[in-house]
């Protein structure tokens, strides 16, 4: 009998490689459930989950909501644009008000790094971090590694490069932790202005030339340029970024091996990835989305046992 070592999923940094394996094994079973004629199980029928989103999200929120509904949980949705947050209520008050209505789990996205960690010290409900600012996005990293495992058989020993806006990316940080815990080699690649200053201390390789990075790797995880988080100019223009860091089919064909292409979405077609590359057989972008539901079902199922 195995269980998670944590009560909340705040970040990949806090969990063990065994936790990740347990989540993967449970997700394998949920993936099987999702391929049945009836894609629903009654496991969480006595649990109410609040999806609290203080920041915009389409994919992650839909994926969580679907995962919750397929586990038969009751779901309430909350987004800050239509709430009392605008009237000046604090985060803790907002969440405590939701919990007073007998909610068992909170899935939260917030623009401030550490917001879910703060909450976890003050409330009893299980918390799943669905992205906190530029810090972590654990379920995304889990589904990315799960998708690599599905495509290549194993994550250990694989060479994975994360390309693009590393500085503003929570996906990058969570991915680095997850991949390293699973035994992969990690490289980051991007313009120097978009690489955090002390990134080497995390034990990752740094490469500035995207062609060399692609030649090195087995898997390339391409990130979006997060213009909404950039308060200053980090590169002269999007066109110039595309010229130096955009990946197209020609580049993939020129490699002497097959690499796997990933993207956490949303894709800016023609910026970091050309359409022919995003839609090529190299890409597992839609598999990532599919696996996202199974991974989130596994996380919610395993955390629900820790109440």
């Amino acid at each position, binding site marked *: *009998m195995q*269980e998670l070592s944590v009560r909340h999923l705040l970040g990949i940094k806090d969990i063990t490689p065994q936790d990740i394996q347990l989540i993967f094994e449970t997700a394998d079973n949920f993936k099987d459930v999702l391929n049945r*004629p009836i894609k629903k199980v009654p496991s969480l029928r006595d649990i109410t989950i609040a999806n609290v989103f203080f920041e915009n999200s389409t994919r992650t929120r839909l994926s969580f909501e679907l995962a919750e509904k397929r586990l038969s949980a009751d779901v309430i949705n909350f987004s800050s644009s239509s709430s009392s947050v605008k009237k000046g209520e604090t985060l803790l008050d907002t969440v405590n008000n939701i919990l007073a209505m007998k909610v068992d789990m909170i899935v939260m996205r917030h623009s401030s790094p550490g917001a879910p960690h703060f909450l976890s010290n003050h409330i009893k409900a299980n918390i799943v971090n669905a992205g906190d600012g530029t810090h972590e996005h654990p379920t995304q990293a889990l589904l990315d590694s799960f998708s690599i495992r599905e495509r290549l058989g194993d994550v250990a020993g694989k060479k994975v490069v994360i390309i693009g806006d590393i500085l503003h990316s929570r996906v990058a940080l969570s991915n680095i932790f997850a991949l390293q815990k699973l035994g992969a080699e990690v490289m980051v690649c991007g313009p120097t202005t978009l690489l955090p200053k002390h990134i080497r201390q995390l034990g990752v390789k740094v490469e500035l030339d995207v062609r060399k990075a692609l030649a090195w790797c087995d898997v390339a995880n391409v990130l979006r340029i997060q213009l909404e988080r950039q308060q200053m100019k980090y590169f002269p223009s999007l066109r110039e970024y595309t010229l130096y860091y955009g990946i197209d089919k020609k580049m993939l064909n020129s490699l002497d091996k097959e690499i796997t292409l990933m993207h956490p979405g949303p894709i800016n077609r023609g910026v970091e990835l050309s359409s022919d590359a995003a839609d090529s057989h190299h890409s597992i972008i839609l598999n990532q989305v599919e696996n996202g539901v199974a991974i989130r079902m596994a996380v919610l199922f395993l955390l629900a046992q820790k109440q």
Partner: protein
Amino acid sequence: MQKRLIVNHQLLDIMVLRLCHQLIENHGDFSDSVILGLQPRGRFVAQRIQHTLASILGKQVPTGYLDTTFHRDDFRRRETPLTANATKVDFLIEGKNVILVDDVLYTGRSVRAALDAMIAYGRPANVELLVLIDRLYSRHLPIQPTYVGRHVNSLQSQRVLVEWKEQQAPEDNIWLITKNEE
């Protein structure tokens, strides 16, 4: 802890053979019948039944494994966490005669969960239950087996353990385990 052998491997072989003949009486050539073993332990019984049927009928009866973890009613109410097992049902059960197979029938709750889990794969024409051991007077639910290897009268504090060579046990054996009073 006391361990008493209640069925040895020769008896177990005879028991499986008898259950197979009873199945053949009801299912004929198994053209519309499938076997579903309940994970984790019913799977070994299902494999044994399939193997024995193959040696009698000369054909492989479709056999799958059903995991009931996500359908259990004691999720979050038990001391030890539940761990999911693989489900492998690579055939349609719509309109089929399904034989659910498990090693020990005790409270009946696993079987209830299995009925739920099975329905997700379609609507079977008929469902039967085969168990090696039926523990008497212990049911929480109105569930009765169609085919029984042996009835066992046991105390609540006792446990019935079925061991298989496939699980690295030295022999196929069925034990009645009694925990010593402290």
